[in-house]
Structure formats: C-alpha cells, structure tokens
C-alpha cells in the first residue's frame, strides 16, 4: 500500500466528501470525528514521506491507471501518456502546509459552525477544498492542475458566500469566482499554447523539450500572471481584502492557504516548467523575469502594509497583511530567479541567491502558520463582539486569556520579533537581499516595522482597555476543538522559531534544491 500514498492523499478527502449526503444521518459529532481522523491520516501519510523524499532526495511518481504506477513513462515511449502525480521535496513541502492548515482550521471551525443549520454543506465543501489544494500540490499535469484549481476556487467562492444573510457576502463570493475564472481562463490558454507546440500536458516532459520560442514566452506570461493574480500580489490584489473580510474566519485561513499553494505552483512553473531545459538553450531572460517578480513583491509589501495601517475593520486589516506578506515571498524567490541563470556559472546563486530562495520558501511556511492563527483569532474576536469593527471592540484580554496569548504570539511572529518563526525567514531574506540590492532589504525592514505598528493597533484596541461585558454578544466559552486549533498553531510557531535549523535542513533546503536543479 505504501506506493499508493500519492493517490490516497488526494482521494481520501474526495471520497469522504462524496459520502457526506449518505452519512448525513450519522450525527454531527461522529461526522466531525471522521473528518478529523481523515485529516490526521493525511498528515500522517505526508510525514511518512518525509524520510524518503526530503531527506534522501527521492522523487516519487504515480502514474494513474498504468500497469506499473511508479514509472514515469511506459516502456518503449519517451513521453508519459497518462496523468502523473509527482512528489518531490517541493511538492511535499506544499502538501505539508496544506495538511497542517486544513487540520487546525477544521478543528477551529467545529466550534464556530456548531449551531449552524447548513453545517453539513460546510464540511463537504471544506473537504473538497482540501482535496483541491492537495491535488494542486502534487499533480505533474497542467490540465489536471487546472481541474484542481477550479475545484479549490469554486469551493472557495461558495464558502466565502457561506453567510448569505450578510449584505455583502454573496457579492464577495461573486468577486472571488469572477477573478478566479479570469485567471483560470488565461491559464488554460497558456496550457493550450504549450499543448499546441509539444503535444503533451506533462510539466516535466514539456520542460525537457522546451524550445524557449516566442509562443513559450506568451504561455509563460499567461500562466505566471494568472497565478500571481490568484495568489493576490499587487496590483492584482484588490479582491483579497473584499473576499477575505466577508468570509467566515476559518475560510479566510483556507483562502490564505490556497494563495500560498498557488504561489508555490507559480514558483514551480517558473522553474520546473519554464526553467532552462536540457534541449534548448535558456533564451528566456530570467533576470528580467526575476525583476518582474521582485517589483510585484516590493509593491505588494509596501502597498499592502500601508493600506493595512489605516483599516479599522480587523479582517480587512489582516487581509492587507496577507498581501504584504506575499510580497516577502515574491521578493525572496524573485532574487533567486534573477540570479540563478546568470552568466557567472552560478556564483551569485551560491553566494546569496539560494539563501534568498530558502528565505522566501521558509517564509511561505511560517506565514501559513501565523497568518492562519491570526485569522482564527480574528474569528474569535468577531464572534465575541458581533462586529468586525475595531472601534467596537475593547478589553477582550480580560475574558479570553488563551486568545490574547495566541494573538500576541501571532502578532510578534508576523512582525519578525526574534523568538518566533517570522524572524528566521525574514532574517534570511534581509541578509541575502541586502547582497543583491540594499534598497530592497531596507524597504523590507521598513515594512516589518509598519507591520508591528498595525498589529499594535489591533492589540491596543481589542484586547486592552477596561473590561466591557456589555459589548459581548456571544459569551459562550471556546470549545475544545477551537482551543486545540489555536494551541497547535501557536506551538508550531514557537517550535519553528526556536529550532529553525531542523526545519530548514529537513524540509526547506531540499525543497529549494528540488526546485532549482536543472533537468
């Protein structure tokens, strides 16, 4: 059974979702238990792959329906004819992010949708969202990626509009699905151009025969800009605050995870699909491509954080921070892209390019943890006070000690204060980007200061101040699942912050190696 792990990771949430209407009689608690078990099994399967894939550098293929699934191609022909799943260190890294985020978010959401009538739909859509993200992480086929992208964006849109009684929630869902559909249409057009030239959809095969022609550049442009739009980088980020703000808190966290996966996919397409191939000389100018990514990243950081500073709606504030943090990852990996195919025989890449990429990729993981935690605590705040407006919140620290502590951990982590994990990845980014261009590093530090300032604002206005029980709308204590979700994430933040070496050497550095090795 061990060689079937790649397909089990994707199909287990799918079959659980398909059986939801049948098992609807089983009762809420049992169903939650089943779903939590499945998410735990997913995490277990993912961590089972870590020794083989990340530490020893193996690549696992799974060919759907072939007589020998572990072979990339069938005997006698040089190209894959079936859909191939591929697990290398980078996709495993993406999968681990998805696994941890979905588990904690679902634990949190068991408490928040408890009294809702439509909660069975919620769990079905949640499972399908998970399956979509897992599929996006592991597939090695462009069209299959498109299908899973659509699964994740359609379920995301429906979940954004979950609270239909709110005035703007359905329109926020409409915005999300419209933006996603524009992005996926252009993505599919790029896939079509690739197919027209090479007659295949397999990422690895296309890379091995890539000719770097004009049409390839057009396809690359469509695919990468579409992915950047789905990931929410400036100037295509305006939908992010609108949709994240109207969604339930757990769904905001899931949307953030979806953005992270899309970002990982964008990096994967940059290197594994349009990277320098063995057949053609690298005629795509990677320095310009890197600078495009860097400019998008710097704009994201700066505009995101300045807009976040003036918000008074807590969820919009955090959504703007999501945009701003995306900028760090784009900056780190953009520096890596800009130097990795330079004409100096990889000297610049060895000197600082790889460290910048390690910082950027590490920041994706850290950001997934603390941003998830912050979105979840904003959910608690919103639930307590019945509003998202920070002007109407005061003195929550007297009531919810746990929420206060985990919020502080998350806020300090996002600002890059040393014992927490945000510091490690940000330090890596600062140092390496400073060697590339000092101005960019200074902008990044300035943005970090502004981040701290805006989270001080949230902390000051919602947790500090006199105790005001008259403002509390929903005073019920947090359920066990909710607490468990928050505590797991906080513990992960502290552990990653205290022992970054283990994570970097064990998961991040193999992921970057898998990403940048030129096949």
């Amino acid at each position, binding site marked *: 059974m061990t060689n079937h792990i790649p397909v089990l990771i994707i199909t287990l949430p799918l079959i659980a979702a398909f059986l939801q209407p049948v098992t609807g009689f089983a009762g809420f608690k049992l169903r939650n238990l089943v779903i939590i078990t499945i998410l735990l099994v997913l995490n277990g399967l993912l961590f089972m792959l870590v020794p083989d894939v990340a530490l020893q550098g193996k690549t696992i293929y799974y060919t*759907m*329906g072939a007589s020998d699934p572990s072979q990339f191609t069938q005997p006698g022909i040089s190209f894959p004819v*079936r859909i191939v799943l591929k697990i290398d260190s980078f996709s495993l890294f993406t999968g681990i992010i998805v696994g941890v985020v979905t588990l904690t978010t679902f634990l949190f959401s068991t408490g928040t949708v408890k009294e809702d009538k439509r909660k069975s739909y919620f769990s079905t859509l949640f499972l399908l969202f998970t399956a979509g993200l897992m599929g996006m992480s592991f597939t090695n086929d462009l069209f299959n990626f498109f299908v899973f992208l659509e*699964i994740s964006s359609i379920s995301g849109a429906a979940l954004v509009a979950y609270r239909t009684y709110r005035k*703007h929630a*359905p329109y926020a869902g409409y915005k999300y699905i419209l933006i996603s559909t524009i992005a996926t249409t252009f993505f599919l057009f790029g896939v079509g151009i690739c197919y027209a030239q090479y007659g295949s959809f397999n990422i690895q095969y296309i890379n091995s025969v890539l000719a770097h022609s004009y049409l390839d550049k057009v396809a690359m442009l469509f695919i990468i800009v579409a992915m950047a739009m789905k990931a929410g980088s400036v100037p295509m980020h305006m939908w992010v605050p609108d949709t994240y703000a109207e969604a339930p808190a757990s769904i905001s966290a899931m949307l953030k995870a979806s953005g992270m996966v899309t970002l990982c996919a964008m990096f994967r397409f940059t290197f594994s699909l349009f990277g320098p191939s063995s057949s053609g000389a690298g005629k795509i100018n990677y320095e310009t491509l890197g600078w495009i990514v860097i400019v998008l990243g710097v704009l994201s950081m700066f505009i995101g954080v300045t807009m976040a500073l003036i918000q008074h709606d807590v969820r919009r504030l955090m959504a703007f921070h999501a945009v701003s943090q995306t900028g760090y990852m784009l900056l780190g990996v953009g520096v890596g892209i800009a130097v990795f195919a330079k004409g100096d025989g990889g000297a610049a890449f060895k000197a600082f390019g790889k460290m910048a990429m390690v910082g950027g990729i590490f920041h994706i993981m850290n950001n997934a943890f603390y941003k998830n935690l912050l979105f979840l605590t904003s959910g608690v705040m919103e639930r307590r006070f019945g509003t998202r407006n920070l002007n109407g919140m005061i003195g929550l620290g007297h009531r919810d000690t746990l929420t206060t502590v985990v919020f502080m951990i998350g806020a300090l982590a996002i600002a890059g204060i040393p014992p927490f994990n945000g510091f490690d990845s940000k330090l890596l980014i600062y140092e390496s980007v400073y060697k590339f261009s000092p101005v960019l590093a200074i902008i990044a530090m300035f943005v970090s200061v502004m981040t701290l300032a805006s989270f001080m604002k949230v902390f000051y206005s919602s947790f500090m101040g006199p105790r005001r029980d008259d403002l509390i709308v929903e005073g019920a204590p947090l359920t066990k699942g909710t607490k468990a979700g928050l505590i797991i994430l906080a513990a992960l933040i502290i552990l990653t912050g205290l022992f970054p070496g283990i994570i970097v050497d064990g998961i991040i550095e193999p992921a970057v190696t898998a990403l940048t090795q030129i096949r």
Partner: protein
Amino acid sequence: MKLVSLLAMFIIAGFMFTGIGKLHLPGDPAGNSNVFSQRSSEKTDTANISTMDDYYLRNGQMETGSNNIVTSVVFDYRGFDTLGEAAVLFLVVTSISMLLFSIIKGKDLEETVLTDSDGFPAGMTRIVSIGTVLMLPIIMAFGAYLVIHGHLSPGGGFQGGAVMATGTALLVISSFVVRNLQKTYKLFSFFESLGLTVFIVTGFAGMGISFLHNFLANNDGSFLGKVIPLGTNPGFLNSGGILPILSTAVGIEVFCGISIILVLLSRALNARGSQKGGHKC
C-alpha cells in the same frame, strides 16, 4: 484609467495576433502533431509514435477495449481529470443547494400547485404539458442510450446525463411542480452521491495495480471484458472494461446534479420573501 486599459487591450490584441502567426496551422503537416492512424496488427506498437495523441489512436482500442477513443481518453487515460470534473459538478450542486436553501424556506419549500379546471398545472398551455409527458420517455431513453453506448458511439456519461436532465428542464418549464422540495432534494442527492461513490470505488478496485486501472478490459468476455478486433468494427456492448461502469456512474451523477440545480433555481426565482436581515447589516 479607462484609456490605459483600452491601450492595454490593444497591446494584448496586437501581440496575440503576432503570436498566432507563429502557431502551426490546424492540420498543417509541418506542425508538431501530425497524426496518422496507420494501425498495425502487432500488440503494442511503440515505434513511430511521436505524440501522446498518436499513442491514444494506435493503442487506445487495444488497451481499453473501447471503440470510441475520446471515451477511452476521458475515462481511462485521463480518468483522474474526469474524477475531478465529477467532483466539480458535485461541488457546485452542494454549493448551490447550500446557497439557495437560505432563500427558499418556510412556505417556499412546499409549493401549492395551481391547477386549471381539468387538473392540469396552470401557467403553460395544455399542449406543452401533454407534449412534455409524451416527450419525456423518449428523451430519457435517448439519454440512457447515450450513457450506455459511451464506449462505442459518440456520447458518454456527461452527454447522456445532460440529455436526461433536459427532461427535468422540460418538466420545470411546463409547470410541473415539485411538492415536497426537501424530500426530492434528498432523493436526488442520494443518487448523485451514489454515482460518485461507484466511480471512486471502481477506481479503488484497481488499486492492486494502480488507481483507476482498467482491470476488466480484455479478459475473454466474462464481464464487460470482450476483446474487440482492431481497426474498424461494429463493436460489442460488453467490451470496454470499467469504462461502461464509470460512464453509467457519471451519467447518474450528472442527471441528478443538473436536475437539482434546475429545480432549485426555478424555485428560488419564485421565492417570495427576501431573507432575514438582508437589507440591514
């Protein structure tokens, strides 16, 4: 802003028209994928296969036992895409019922049927109602034919299911009213879920070799496994291995899913009250 975006549109158009000049023309033999299906009677002929599609055309009939190569691509070679696609349909049915049951509630769930003096539903004329009754069996039979013959002739689960769902559409527009919406929804939803479960369980059944492996094909005609001759032939209904099973499962799922969407949408458009707290907040 307006002018900038207009200019941007012109730039994109210009560059894309430049790009299509460099794309190979449809059917151009100088293009990358010029496929001739020169069938050989050998088992797996891997010589001279240059592209993925070439492989499908030469080996699809033999490997999957299906005369319709498109169906063999849909359900066998790229069956995982089809699973995702069925999941998309399931997903959209779930989300639409989640969203619309927040509008349809209370009295809207149980519609009182307005009938004319002879007991026919009011609204459309009697010609439409009787015509629907007469047309419905034919439509359903044709849809079922498309589903079952998916591996032999143009058609398959999605097309057949959509044709069967047009029957539901006819019922909806000719004022036949669903009385108990919840019960109907649960019935259709159960069958939709059943179809998908059959699909994925069939996939898991091949797990001894690999997921979605066509383990029934070409096994001396015992169950759906009749070996079809290579090249042009009339075809057998009991060939194709797991393709007819998957096709039927998808057909049931598509029929039930689209029916739910149609019924719920038609009911939501007639729903009376706006929802609670809609204009406040």
